[in-house]
């Protein structure tokens, strides 16, 4: 089976790191990337795409914060063991919610209260 591909559009208004992040998430959510699959190194992916290594590093960092990938010293960046397709979308939504809550100036307790309220509906 061919490896999943990603494509970035440098002319797009969406930052390149965000394009990378969303496409990796989509591949994991669709099951094309499975837990334990090894992603290319930051340098290799940056070379293939002709972008700065820092751009790829930022995408990988965001993915790691969202729990989609983990970085280990010996194996590099791999899809997280618990990044099952069913949970990836929820994790992504949670991460997006936290960003929105912080941007709105909510405290952590207020943000959690909103989630609890939403769960009661």
């Amino acid at each position, binding site marked *: 089976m061919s490896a999943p*591909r*990603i*494509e970035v559009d440098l002319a797009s208004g969406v930052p390149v790191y965000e394009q990378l992040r969303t496409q990796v998430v989509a591949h994991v959510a669709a099951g094309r990337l499975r837990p334990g699959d090894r*992603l*290319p190194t930051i340098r290799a*992916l940056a*070379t293939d*795409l*002709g972008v700065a290594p820092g751009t790829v590093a930022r995408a990988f960092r965001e993915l790691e914060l969202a729990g989609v990938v983990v970085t280990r010293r010996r194996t590099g960046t791999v899809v997280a063991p618990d990044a099952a397709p069913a949970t990836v979308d929820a994790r992504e939504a949670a991460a997006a919610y936290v960003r929105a809550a912080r941007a709105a100036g909510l405290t952590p307790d207020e943000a959690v209260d909103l989630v609890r309220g939403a769960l009661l509906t």
Partner: protein
Amino acid sequence: MNLTVLLLALAVAALVACLVAVVAARATTSAVGEVAVSPAAHDRARRHAATVAAVAWAVLPAAALLLPGAVPDGPGAGVALGCVPAVAGLAFLLVAAVGERTWPAPRGTVRGAALSRRTARDVAPRWTVVALLTWSGLLLGTLLATGVTAGPDGRTVALQPDPLVSTAAGPYPGAPYAVPLAAATVLLALATRGVLHLVAARPAVAGVSTDDDALLRRVSGARVVAGVQLVVGGTLAAVLLATGRALRSAAHATYGVDGVQTEVVQPVADALGAAALVVAPAVALTTLLLALTALVRSSRAAQPHVAVRLEYRTRG
């Protein structure tokens, strides 16, 4: 330097370059497979790979033929001559490495890449690596054996076929030859791994599919490993030849007592020497055939995939 050797080296280099270029660029089609995203982009990448291979393969015989003429006479000349194939191999790898650094960077606003990790192991066909490791292992083993069994001077093998007779014959690859040759072999292996790493790390070819990009890398890797296994296999053949000749020479002795000539033979050394003399040309022939096979196979594999086009004609 002898003008004849220079002209011969240039002629051989040009011939090899032409052969590699012709074989690499031969316009036959392979089995139908995935259609290249852009046949023009695939063709450009194939030509680039063929050019790099042609230059590297021209440097290899040129260096092997020209370097012996540059070795000054003296006690170290034999060792230097023994290392000529390895130096030619390193020159070959240097050209290949420079070639790998000349692949064009991605252009355009839309760029793609595969989300899989590539390593040096992925870009070299397994059988070429097995051949290289086999020759390297046999060469290091042979050098270890000859280094241990050489005489005190390290350049001859001393035997005693008979209690009354001692013999010595050379050149024999003892420690003065074995240590630099073994070091050169290890250096070649490390340099090969470095070049394969460059092949794996070069930018993806824009406009071709992931499978075709991987195939182009394997073609480059096969050509690199094929050249190095030729160098190591050739060195092994030369070492076996020198060892066999020295052993057979030292195993036989003739002496005369009261006018009676007696010929004595050390059977083990004689058998080992004979075996080495038989194996040496077999190794040389095999390594040459493997190199040619790798070049031909890689040129076929690099051909662009074609789509089956059905043409429908209506009778007017």
